[in-house]
């Protein structure tokens, strides 16, 4: 019973979702919107569970003095400090107060400072790491091991050099044309082949879920 009810629910709502795609009727749209609202509701409750999970795992690490537990202290401190500044602030009259339902907290100078001077540089740094990893990956991957790998290598060089201003306009335009062809023809053909497979795989998986053949998402693999 514990497994049958979820399967039944998935079937009913899955079939409705297929139906609503083909039915633009007002009633079908209304039910669709109503169901979509539930995503917000479930999301909010799940967020509470998520935050609880984070606190629990971090607290457990600190309590048991596990390896590098200091990071968990930073995590919890960041969570509570940002939450505190995010819901407090000054109103138009300069009065300090708690703001749970309005946006004053987001204009709190401390909230902004933490955001602009801590989060922004950290996130930008994390993203910029990608440049380093791409360089090292390109160095290791682009080897002319066989004909196909050589074609890949040459294509990569053309795409990378297509906007090189030192080649002059004539060579630049020619390179640009080759690069555009590489991107729009062979690259696109390969991508579309994969995408068609993905599309069919998606429909197949969705049908398997709706029909109750696939139950891995319930732990019944």
């Amino acid at each position, binding site marked *: 019973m514990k497994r049958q009810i979820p399967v039944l629910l998935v079937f009913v709502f899955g079939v409705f979702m*297929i139906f609503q*795609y*083909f*039915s*633009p*009727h*007002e*009633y*079908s*749209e*209304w039910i669709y919107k109503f169901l979509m609202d539930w*995503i917000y509701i479930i*999301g909010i409750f*799940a*967020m*509470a*569970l*998520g*935050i609880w*999970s*984070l606190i629990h*795992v971090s607290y*457990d690490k600190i309590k048991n003095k596990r*390896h*590098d537990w200091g*990071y968990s202290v930073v995590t919890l401190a960041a969570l509570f400090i940002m939450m505190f500044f995010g819901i407090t602030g000054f109103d138009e009259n300069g009065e300090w107060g708690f703001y749970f339902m309005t946006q004053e907290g987001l204009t709190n100078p401390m909230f902004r400072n933490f955001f602009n001077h801590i989060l922004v540089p*950290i*996130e930008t740094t*994390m*993203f910029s*790491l*990608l440049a380093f*990893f*791409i360089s090292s*990956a390109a160095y*290791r*991957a682009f080897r002319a091991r066989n004909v196909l790998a050589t074609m890949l290598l040459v294509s990569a060089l053309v795409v990378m050099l297509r906007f090189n201003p030192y080649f002059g306009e004539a060579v630049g335009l020619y390179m640009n044309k080759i690069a555009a062809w590489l991107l729009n023809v062979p690259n696109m053909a390969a*991508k579309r082949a*994969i*995408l*068609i*497979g*993905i599309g*069919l*795989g*998606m*429909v*197949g*998986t969705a*049908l*398997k*879920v709706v029909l109750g*053949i*696939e139950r*891995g*998402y*319930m*732990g*019944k*693999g």
Partner: protein
Amino acid sequence: MRYILIIFSLILITFSAVIGQVDPVVTDSLAPVPAPPAPVTEVAVSDKANDHGHALIIEWKRSLDDGAGSNAVMLYEIFRSEFPDSAFKMVGSVPLGNERFEDIGTIEKESRDYIPDNTNLYYRVDAVTIDPVVRTSSEVYGPVQSYSNWFHKGRVPVLTAVLIFGALMVYFVSVARKGTELYVRPLAGIAAVDDAIGRATEMGRPILYILGLGTADMISTIASFTILSRVAKQVAEYQTELIVPCYDPIVMTVAQEVVKSSYLDAGHPDNYKEDSVFYITTNQFAYVAAVNGIMLRDLPATNVYMGKFYAESLILAETGAVAGSIQIAGTDEVGQLPFFIVACDYTLIGEELYAASAYLGREPIMLGSLKAQDYAKAAVIVLMILGLLAINVHLNAFIEIFKVVD
């Protein structure tokens, strides 16, 4: 009395001049008044097809003075009323040269733009000159009603494809159920999952399973749940540690249930630790930083990346490679596939991710659905070739069969 009138007029003119209204009035009065333009003809109003109602399409033939004749028409204004001869309200305007207007209203009754369904409505179109007062109204068209459509006729090709694909699936699943042996080509990435779990057990190190950045409603995440359940079952049997850091709280809740059920199915419910599946953050790079930290601290023997990945894919996979883990990845995000292929030991490309659960279980029903996918793919290839031929011999009717209208 005459003097009083003169003085009063002077005061009035002075006052008007002060507030700056005299000049335009004088100029306007001197400007030639345009003659009323010819009216628009053949006004026709119809319900907008394939929609939720509350919308109509108004079409007409241009005024003879639009771009020709006296060239007086500047724009067309469209009016609607629930009565044939009064209470017309302007609902929109289009510049000269146009012969069509979509009057799209809202569903909300309290809204100003509400158009009632199944109610008689009347329309007229005014040809308006540079002087908005000078205009000519068309004949009133009506009554006409808007209504909701139960079926979207423009999506028949999609419905047909879904039905054919569904039928293929049901057929192959029933064939598989009867015990017919179905061949599917082996996938190295899938075979590696078993070995990787064995390796982790031998080394006494954990397995890190990343569900990606997708939400629970994405097919790639659903496929990842299925693979997670298989991995968790084996992990439970071998009594190895499993770490599942999550990006989305709903995904975390589902993943907890998946792992818990797998431990139960494997007969080791006591070994399940709720903290093994935990939430980190819904911030892409903060999540990456946390997962990289786990990789470098706990040195997992195997990292499994299955689901939706974006720019973080290479950062995760390269860090995993530095930590010396065996890495298996699978994603349907085409842009990230090259990164995983470079940095991981095995990569499931696109649909292979969805097929993984069928491979892992080797259950006939699952293999049957894979067979259906293969046949559908063959059909797509055949249709693409036919389409290519049709377009080259200008057989447009063939192309039109597959046209989907939104």
